[in-house]
């Protein structure tokens, strides 16, 4: 087993928010593997198999050399290795990665409108809008220059802007400075993996553009001995097929939606770790997953604004344990706040937290108007606004049917003008909403059950919905 020559690599150093000392782009040794390719990347002359940190850095510099002199880069790469190279190349070139919550045309157009000094980085998908687009697979890269070195990054550099996986294009931007990303990667490494004696091979099913995917499949390999696969399999058989090909020891980074279908398969592979996040996991499913893969499953609690903050072994524990670097406080109104040295601001949590003591808490439902659909967080009010902005809608309301299951979607009740159909409304939704938030079903009615005041209490709406369902 490989042991680190420099044990200092694995000591967590607390950072102060206003540090100016440059921080390395990664904390790895050049010869270590950082990626495991299941398929060749022919335009880059890469065969399937291991890619070393040194090779990775070569690609980072070569890509940086062809990036335009624009501030913002929408990183749409599907291939995780290409995403990682692009992500770092943008940072090396002192640019900012924009990580959109979806690939909708409306989102793309909106980002280009707001962040005008912009271009798109991708690996072959269809690109919309007027901004310059660079396909990493077809753009010729210059030859490798000087011997590779690990570059330093200004901690105050705005490395990325993550968008809370909102329902519509104008979700709140979350600014990610390099200091925050690097510090949280070290925190996550210590909290999730501890000291690794050798390389841990990772398969993640989540997009790199989503904070959970960014933290685990992009940042962790930069700061821990993690070697990540470039694929993002969806179906259980594909996930199993990939895990079989990965060297051991292996870890799976996934969500409850994927786990549900995985435990239903007959075939299995032994794993060393499973990490699950983004939407609530039941202890039953956690136990099934642990048995299926003979591995401990740890569920991580986090949010876009903070990143990962707490952990629990769901099969055995109800309580969450905070990461030691993150502090939770709860005010008299019940609102929970999170703070940490590496965060530029305190963050108010959207969830119903119940602090048991300083280190542990339980989770209630969501406060207010936010819902979680298959791991994506969105605002019901925002979706409602989109519904009401459609010219054919005379009246309408969007709501979450109860009880909410793992894949329950928003529903909509609408009164439509004679000239439009629900199909037209669906088309409109498709242009403006992340697919997870498109209401389904869309029930057409003559009138909404509003009170005289015009209000529509949730209980009345849900009761009416039940009657409509049973009447069919």
């Amino acid at each position, binding site marked *: 087993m490989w042991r680190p020559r420099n044990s200092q690599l694995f000591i967590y150093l607390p950072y102060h928010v206003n540090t100016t000392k440059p921080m390395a782009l990664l904390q790895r040794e050049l010869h270590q593997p950082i990626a495991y390719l299941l398929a060749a990347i022919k335009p880059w002359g890469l065969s399937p198999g291991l890619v070393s940190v040194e090779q990775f850095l070569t690609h980072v510099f070569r890509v940086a050399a062809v990036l335009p002199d624009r501030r913002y880069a929408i990183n749409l790469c599907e291939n995780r290795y290409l995403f990682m190279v692009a992500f770092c190349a943008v940072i090396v070139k002192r640019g900012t990665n924009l990580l959109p919550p979806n690939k909708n045309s409306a989102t793309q157009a909106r980002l280009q409108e707001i962040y005008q000094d912009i271009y798109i980085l991708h690996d072959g998908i269809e690109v919309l809008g007027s901004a310059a687009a660079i396909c990493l697979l077809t753009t010729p890269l210059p030859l490798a220059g000087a011997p590779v070195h690990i570059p330093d990054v200004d901690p105050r550099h705005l490395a990325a802007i993550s968008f809370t996986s909102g329902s519509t294009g104008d979700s709140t931007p979350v600014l990610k400075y390099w200091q925050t990303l690097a510090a949280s990667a070290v925190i996550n490494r210590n909290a999730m993996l501890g000291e690794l004696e050798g390389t841990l091979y990772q398969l993640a099913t989540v997009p790199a553009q989503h904070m959970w995917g960014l933290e685990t499949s992009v940042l962790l390999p930069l700061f821990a001995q993690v070697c990540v696969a470039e694929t993002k*399999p*969806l*179906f*259980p*058989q*594909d996930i199993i*097929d990939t895990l079989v090909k990965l060297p051991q020891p292996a870890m799976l980074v996934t969500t409850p*939606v*994927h786990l*549900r*279908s995985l435990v*239903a*398969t007959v075939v299995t592979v032994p794993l060393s770790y499973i990490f699950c996040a983004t939407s609530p996991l039941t202890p039953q499913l956690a136990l099934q997953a642990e048995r299926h893969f003979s591995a401990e499953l740890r569920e991580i609690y986090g949010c876009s604004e903070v990143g990962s903050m707490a952990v629990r072994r769901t099969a055995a524990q109800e309580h969450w344990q905070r990461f030691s670097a993150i502090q939770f406080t709860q005010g008299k109104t019940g609102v929970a706040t999170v703070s940490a040295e590496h965060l530029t601001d305190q963050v108010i949590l959207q969830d119903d937290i119940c602090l048991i003591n300083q280190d542990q808490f339980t989770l209630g439902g969501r406060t207010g108007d936010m819902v979680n659909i*298959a791991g994506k967080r969105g605002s019901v009010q925002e979706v409602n606004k989109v519904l009401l902005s459609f010219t054919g809608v005379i009246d309408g309301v969007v709501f979450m049917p109860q009880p909410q299951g793992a*894949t*329950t*979607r928003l529903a909509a009740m609408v009164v439509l003008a004679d000239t439009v159909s*629900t199909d037209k409304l*669906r*088309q409109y939704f*498709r242009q403006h909403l992340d*697919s*997870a938030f*498109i209401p*389904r*079903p*869309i*029930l057409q009615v003559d009138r909404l059950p509003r009170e005289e005041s015009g209000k529509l209490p949730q209980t009345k709406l849900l009761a009416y919905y039940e009657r409509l*369902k049973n009447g*069919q």
Partner: protein
Amino acid sequence: MANQSAAELKMAELLVDALNLEDITPSEIDPEAPLFGEGLGLDSIDALEIALAISQRYGLQMRAEEASTQEAFTTLKSLSAFVEAAQ
């Protein structure tokens, strides 16, 4: 009413059931209409649910990268044909 074969109707019922498509009647799904994006407007979360339902009912494992799977997920007709061929 859409022109469905018996097998296609069965598959339509599986879709409506697995995806909770409450506002759609199985016999109304046009066999030639796209399942994803346009037409029925399904997304990747739905693809996973469908693959799960098919594996549970028919014991078939689908692989996303295979041409046969990508072809199968085009329309109700192609999905039904895929399952029939594998029986």
